[in-house]
């Protein structure tokens, strides 16, 4: 507690009952908009990606005469790389743009100033719920995407040849290392937080006029994509440096 106060972080945490209630309400609402409402889209994208990757991988592996490696290929491509990145792109396209445009609009409508003047902490009420919600949502979206992508992978594997589910799951499970879970969580949580923060900052950078809304939204998308790619690439490099490429 003392450390939090000393670092000046107390401002970011809703300590009081009324503040906490509004923080949780806004966080849950944002999770609903970001994750729950996009579940169908994630499912379709996940299955589609899984089918496509498995089909391609299966053809390639068949040429090499080594179909048993399909699980490993899926873990390499889907679990480590595609899932966090596709989920991040989805969240930027759906929620990042919405958050940036919302922030710009509410700033223009003096809603931020109104909150400040009413003694309502904008961090507790606006910023922190969105950051936490996007961190949670990106993790949940990635898990959902991964689940459907693996399902799609199995369907794709069975299009060209027979691949029993048990064999498929075993090959996937054998390819996953404990560190994969850690890096998967790190990637989704950090990227989610950075996307939220970038979109909030760019949205709130609106100066005065409504014509700036598309400009700041556009900037939010480009910057979020750049940061997301950068973080993803950096964490992947760290992973492979630490654990090597296990072929």
């Amino acid at each position, binding site marked *: 507690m003392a450390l939090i106060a000393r670092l000046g972080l107390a*401002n970011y945490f809703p300590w*009081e*009952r*009324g*503040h906490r*209630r*509004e923080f949780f309400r806004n966080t849950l609402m944002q999770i609903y908009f970001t994750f729950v409402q996009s579940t169908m889209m994630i499912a379709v994208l996940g299955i589609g990606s899984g089918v496509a990757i498995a089909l391609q991988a299966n053809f390639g592996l068949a040429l090499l005469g080594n179909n048993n490696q399909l699980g490993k290929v899926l873990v390499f491509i889907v679990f480590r790389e595609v899932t966090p990145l596709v989920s991040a792109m989805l969240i930027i396209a759906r929620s990042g743009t919405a958050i940036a445009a919302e922030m710009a*609009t*509410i700033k223009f*409508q*003096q*809603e931020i*100033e*109104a*909150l*400040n*003047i*009413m*003694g*309502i*902490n904008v961090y507790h*009420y606006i910023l922190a719920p969105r950051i936490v919600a996007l961190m949670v949502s990106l993790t949940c979206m990635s898990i959902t995407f991964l689940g459907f992508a693996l399902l799609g992978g199995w369907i794709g594997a069975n299009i060209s040849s027979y691949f029993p589910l048990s064999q498929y799951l075993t090959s996937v499970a054998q390819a996953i290392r404990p560190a994969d879970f850690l890096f998967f969580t790190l990637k989704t949580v950090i990227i989610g937080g950075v996307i939220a923060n970038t979109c909030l900052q760019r949205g709130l950078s609106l100066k005065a006029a409504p014509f700036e809304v598309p400009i700041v939204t556009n900037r939010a998308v480009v910057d979020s994509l750049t940061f997301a790619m950068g973080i993803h690439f950096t964490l992947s490099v760290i992973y492979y440096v630490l654990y090597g490429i296990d072929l």
Partner: protein
Amino acid sequence: MTELSTGVGKPQLELRQVVGSSPLGPLGNVHPLDFALLGGQVGVVFGGKETSSLFRLIMGTGKIDQGELVLEGTHVRDAKSNDKGLSAWRQRIGFGFREKGLLSNLTLMDNVDLPAKYHDRYHEGMTKNEIAISALRQAGIPENLWHVRPDRINWEIRKRVLLARSIVLDPRVLILDDPSALIASPTMPAMLNWLFEQKAKGRGILIGTNDYPFGLAAADWVLHPETNRITTDYRDFIADEWIKSADILRALGVRAVRKSA
């Protein structure tokens, strides 16, 4: 009527020789701001940008270079020394925005209720939304509009919701930015009535407006635009026609008070 009686009561808001600035511009550079607003008193500041700038300064968003700003014995510099202090300062002042400031994703009821909920003003034994309902009723918002969002209602109702929200924390001081703006002439007496009700509750009310009849009809004193000091004789800078219009409006407002009583 050329002389207005200054109200009686304790000083609630005091500006002592203040020179400063807010995000909207500098203040009191030529003549420092110097006035005290007592409980149950209405002070009026005529002007545009300077008024908004003064109000932001009072709400703690500006910088004081010289002088003192005191709210019920608390200095703004002490309040601004930490976030809790500043939040407490702002909770003691009700601020009525000119036209914007309602949260577009909340209903009128939720907009008015938000400060009460956030600052935990509901206690055991109170009914749901009791504080907000009382404020909405006082501002004359029809019950069928309580659960609609601001984009569904006209500007006059939005304005009245902003006024309702300004009293929801039961502040000692009310600052109203152009309270008569967007209010249609037939409902102006009711608006004055609302203002007189707040005054009767002992709130100190500071109004910024360009509407001379409304401002003078409500005022106990006026801030002289050149000296930045309180005056009750404003014939040197306000035309007689405006003063006569103010007398008519005040009479209508008083009649509205009697009617509602």
